[in-house]
């Protein structure tokens, strides 16, 4: 049983008891506990079931590398799966549930995977077992995989918590607040530069406070306290706990996640731009691969020491130690000092001899040198170990009873932040570890080194070297002087003996019980199988076996896995190499990434000056870019279609109002403005007289139609270009692109003044009557003929009135400064009351323009359509020497008479054609599909004509007037439609000229 000791635990406050539940059992812990330490204190060794085989699993580690201790945390909408118990601070009332078990942790039916299916779930099982027979995939394999895929449960409901971002620009970012990071920050801070020190844990000092070396003649804890105080006193240094550096990106961009505790946001994502990064994020202890190394009670030696020293928790009464290095002896000594029993230290090395080994010997602890563990006894809990010769095949020499095993296979520097941007690694044979290769640092934009490693993340394990490395890294990052070394004292250590499989000659039966990746259930046998099947690349073997692909991203398993792979391939470890380190260091919740952008702040919505009025008058919305435009105005009880029909008829028979404020309005001015516009538009704009309007088309360099709109000439050297709603920003950028990059010597300035004006279309036979009631500007046909504009007072408004029409009716577009927009609209509503003035939305606008055969960018065009396809050749200048798209439009494919061309369609049965439908040609293609000869671009019910109308692109369309074509319909017979002129209403244009 694990239990709380009566004394000890430097992080817990025994005067502040907390209660929590795990799988419904009420438990007690203390302030300062993690969920993991509190579970152990309550004797809860087993915390979950493994992913594939549902094996009982206990805590293995004490930090972010923990593979087994994942829980569903919280309840209801705050429930979160896969939370690591080892780094979850205990809170009063906490509710945690174990994962991947049914019906309960102790009695799990999925365990059948282990006993029966185990042999059928080897490496690559996805690719093998489930291939045959084919019908089994849908009914047997897939449901099985779906059920077993993923750990934890999906949270219920929306995440009620808030999150935020924070941007910081610094010179030096120090990741990690252990003694390496603290000394690096100290050295960097002295330079006076901006330094930010981030530590993921809630306290400073890292492992030094557990192992208690002597620093600067004082206990490590005292040095840490003094150093933190010195850093806090530096005005240029900022320190933050509970903040994990998640990822390093190009150009010194770094993200870090801060855990907050309070009324505000739950987490804060730091978005940091830094010149240099010191990576002082420590090292992670490696497990050893022996049979049964996943039985609850087998734990990393350092973790066992952490639980003892930090939280006063003993993992077992009799702790067997198994190691290939000296560091694990610290655990043996700590366990012994706590008054517990160390029945044996199994040391793989033939002649262990360091200072810690001597201390253990002097205390009378039994050391078995040159030995290994043949297997762990027990299933839900360790009951003993069988010893064997390391060099042999696992024949048991002796069984020793114990209830916990502390293992240490050496340390792996955490090189993640070094490697995120490409830092290379070298294999240190002596220490048996991959460490940052100073010859292959990650570099930033100017070629200088971006990340400087420090401390044990650089591969230094002794206190003195760690401190020196930190000071050096801090000085290097800040470009300052290296400070004098701090004296340190810790135990001399003997060399490590690399051990990747224990015992070395283990047969397959044992290898099948040697776990490498605890979370994804990958064993030594799986990696060896992958090697036998030809997976030579470590990246391929990883994906084939799923080694390191769980939520812990292989923090414990990667090095052991690739070492086993290298042995199987008879290659040296550095030849096999590591897999790629990618951010984030530990998983981030999506809420953190979204930050403040949720609910009403999810996305900006652009509103015109008249938006509120629309809202109050039944508008149903159409999103256009980030704008919301009224689609139609629903009267009480009215259906959308009815509203659209009513609005269309109101414009045809009386007068309607459209909020056209969203149309792009770009002023183009300068001595070369006319010349510039002649290049931008396909037709000629330079000859447009002042005071007049001209419809224009804009094409890309490739000849495709990209925007259209009315251009007006404001003055001798100034034009105003109207663009589509969605095109305003794009077209402005397009203009600036050409002006800045290609024609930089042309004297032209542009300004996107879209939002300066509100614009209202007043359309219908009564339009002039309504405007006349406002008074002011003379809007008579003589004073303001079609395609002209005037500026002046319209009633109280500062107006520019354009005589243009997108509906085919007599129409005026009135632009006023945006702050006058709502008042203008309301004045028009009032003035038009006697003619039943009707606000109309974008759908009525679409129907009205389609009845007139006017094209719409984005409906008739899709990026592959040229003006000639739409019978708009009249708006493409033949005279101009050049314009954007001219050359492209002369190419063979563009000039091909076989292109699909614009026509109108009328269904014979008067029905509305389906949107986007194809027009069927004769016969079938080589794939047995029906040939097509055109497609529908716009289709509506026309209230004016009381029938379905459509526009379509049809093979040689204009030559085929009167013919009947067949339009495909999903799940039904094709619909017959007659090819007609797209202008279905007032072809002579008498109404808009009225």
């Amino acid at each position, binding site marked *: 049983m694990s239990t709380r000791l009566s004394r000890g635990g430097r992080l817990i406050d025994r005067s502040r008891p907390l209660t929590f539940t795990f799988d419904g059992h009420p438990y007690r812990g203390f302030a300062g506990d993690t969920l993991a330490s509190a579970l152990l204190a309550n004797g809860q060794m087993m915390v979950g079931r493994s992913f594939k085989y549902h094996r009982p699993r206990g805590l293995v580690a004490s930090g972010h590398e923990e593979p087994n201790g994942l829980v569903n945390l919280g309840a209801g909408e705050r429930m979160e799966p896969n939370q690591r118990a080892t780094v979850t601070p205990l809170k009063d009332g906490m509710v945690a549930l174990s994962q991947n078990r049914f019906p309960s942790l102790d009695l799990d039916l999925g365990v059948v995977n282990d006993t029966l299916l185990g042999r059928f779930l080897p490496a690559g099982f996805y690719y093998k077992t489930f291939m045959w027979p084919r019908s089994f995939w849908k009914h047997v394999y897939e449901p099985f995989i779906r059920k077993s895929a993923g750990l934890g449960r999906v949270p219920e409901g929306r995440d009620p918590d808030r999150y935020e971002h924070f941007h910081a620009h610094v010179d030096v970012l120090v990741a990690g607040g252990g003694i390496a990071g603290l000394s690096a920050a100290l050295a960097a801070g002295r330079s006076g530069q901006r330094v930010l020190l981030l530590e993921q844990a809630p306290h400073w000092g890292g492992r030094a406070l557990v192992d208690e070396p002597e620093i600067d003649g004082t206990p490590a804890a005292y040095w840490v306290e003094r150093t933190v105080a010195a850093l806090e006193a530096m005005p240029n240094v900022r320190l933050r706990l509970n903040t994990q550096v998640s990822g390093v990106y190009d150009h010194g961009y770094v993200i870090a996640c801060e855990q907050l505790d309070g009324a505000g946001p739950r987490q804060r994502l730091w978005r940091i731009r830094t010149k240099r990064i010191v990576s002082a994020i420590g090292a992670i202890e490696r497990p050893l691969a022996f049979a049964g190394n996943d039985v609850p009670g087998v734990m990393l030696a350092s973790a066992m020491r952490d639980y003892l020293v930090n939280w006063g928790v003993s993992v077992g009464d009799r702790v067997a130690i198994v190691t290939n290095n000296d560091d694990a002896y610290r655990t043996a000594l700590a366990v012994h000092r706590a008054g517990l029993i160390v029945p044996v230290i199994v040391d793989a090395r033939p002649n262990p001899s360091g200072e810690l080994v001597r201390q253990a010997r002097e205390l009378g602890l039994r050391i078995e040198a040159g030995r290994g563990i043949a297997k762990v006894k027990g299933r839900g809990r360790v009951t003993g170990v069988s010893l064997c010769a390391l060099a042999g095949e696992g024949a048991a020499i002796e069984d020793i009873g114990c209830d916990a095993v502390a293992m240490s296979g050496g340390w792996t520097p955490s090189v993640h932040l070094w490697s995120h941007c490409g830092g290379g690694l070298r294999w240190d044979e002596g220490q048996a570890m991959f460490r940052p290769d100073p010859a292959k640092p990650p570099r930033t934009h100017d070629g200088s080194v971006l990340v400087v490693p420090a401390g044990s993340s650089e591969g230094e394990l002794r206190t003195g070297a760690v401190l020196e490395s930190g000071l050096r890294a801090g000085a290097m990052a800040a470009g300052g002087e290296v400070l004098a070394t701090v004296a340190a004292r810790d135990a001399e250590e003997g060399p490590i003996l690399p051990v990747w499989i224990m015992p070395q000659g283990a047969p397959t039966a044992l290898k099948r019980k040697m776990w490498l990746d605890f979370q994804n259930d990958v064993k030594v046998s799986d990696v060896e199988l992958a090697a036998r099947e030809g997976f030579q690349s470590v990246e391929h073997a990883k994906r084939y076996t799923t080694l390191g692909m769980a939520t812990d991203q292989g923090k414990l398993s990667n090095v052991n896995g690739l070492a086993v792979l290298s042995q199987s391939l008879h290659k040296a470890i550095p030849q096999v190499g590591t897999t790629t380190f990618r951010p984030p260091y530990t998983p981030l919740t999506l809420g953190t990434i979204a930050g403040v952008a949720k609910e009403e702040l999810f996305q900006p919505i652009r509103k015109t000056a008249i938006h509120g009025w629309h809202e109050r008058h039944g508008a149903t919305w159409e999103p256009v870019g980030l704008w919301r435009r009224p689609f139609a105005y629903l009267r009480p009880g009215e259906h959308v279609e009815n509203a659209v029909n009513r609005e269309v008829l109101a414009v045809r028979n009386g007068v309607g109002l459209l909020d056209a404020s969203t149309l792009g309005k770009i002023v183009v001015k300068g001595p070369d403005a006319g010349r510039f516009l002649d290049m931008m538009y396909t037709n000629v704009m330079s000859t447009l007289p002042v005071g007049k309007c001209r419809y224009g088309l804009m094409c890309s360099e490739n000849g495709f139609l990209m925007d259209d709109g009315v251009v007006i000439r404001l003055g001798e050297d100034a034009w105003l270009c109207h663009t589509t709603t969605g095109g305003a920003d794009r077209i402005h950028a397009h203009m600036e692109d050409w002006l800045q990059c290609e024609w930089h010597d042309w004297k032209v300035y542009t300004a996107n003044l879209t939002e300066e004006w509100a614009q209202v279309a007043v359309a219908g036979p009564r339009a002039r009557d309504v405007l006349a009631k406002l008074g002011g500007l003379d809007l008579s046909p003589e004073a303001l003929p079609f395609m002209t504009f005037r500026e002046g007072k319209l009633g109280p408004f500062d107006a520019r009135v354009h005589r243009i029409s997108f509906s085919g009716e007599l129409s005026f577009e009135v632009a006023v400064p945006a702050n*006058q927009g709502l008042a203008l609209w309301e004045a028009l509503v009032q003035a038009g009351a006697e003619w039943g003035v009707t606000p109309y939305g974008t759908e009525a606008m679409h129907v009205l323009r389609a009845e007139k055969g006017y094209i719409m960018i984005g409906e008739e065009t899709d990026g592959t359509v040229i003006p000639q396809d739409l019978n708009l050749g009249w708006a493409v200048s033949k005279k101009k020497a050049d314009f954007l798209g001219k050359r492209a439009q002369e190419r063979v494919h563009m000039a091909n008479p076989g292109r699909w061309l614009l026509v109108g369609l009328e269904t014979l049965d008067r029905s509305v054609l389906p949107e986007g439908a194809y027009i069927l040609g004769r016969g079938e293609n080589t794939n047995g599909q029906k040939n097509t000869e055109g497609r529908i671009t716009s289709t509506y019910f026309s209230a004016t004509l009381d029938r379905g109308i459509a526009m379509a692109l049809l093979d040689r369309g204009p030559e085929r007037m009167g013919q009947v074509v067949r339009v495909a319909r999903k799940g039904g017979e094709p619909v017959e439609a007659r090819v007609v002129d797209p202008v279905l209403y007032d072809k002579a244009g008498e109404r808009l000229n009225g």
Partner: protein
Amino acid sequence: MVEVTLSAPLGMISLRGDHGDAALREAVTAVTGTAFPERLRIEGTSERGAAWMSPDELLIFVPRDEAVAAVARLSEALAGVHHLVADVSDMRVCLRLDGPGAREVLAKLSPADLHPEAFGPGTFRRSRLGQLAAGFWLEGEGARVICFRSLADYALALLRQSGRDGAVGYY
């Protein structure tokens, strides 16, 4: 900590032209009564001043009721000089961030360097606030933000929420 409100309407004028042109510099300073704003600078205030928008664009602030006259004055002074001047008083809104937390509220949303060394009085940044394009600078006991008028509601909600979410304790 930070109060976010919509400022009273300002007179705003967009001026594009050659910042090296003596006539242009003189025309601007004659209207604002301040120095000419160099790169990333604002001279004067949102009541009367000028901000650097790009290498050939300024935003000039005058009291609202003087905007029309100021545009005319600039046009007249710049006759014969290639330029574009436009009254854009209605195009943008100005938001006030009053309180000592203004800098942190902006730093929650903008990727620009807002450290006092880089963002002090007189610094003008055109950047982003979350998903919004915005300009901002320090003024009075806080900061001012300008953004397109169509986004006023969103900007208010965004800045207010960021204020409510509390201090970061960094600046």
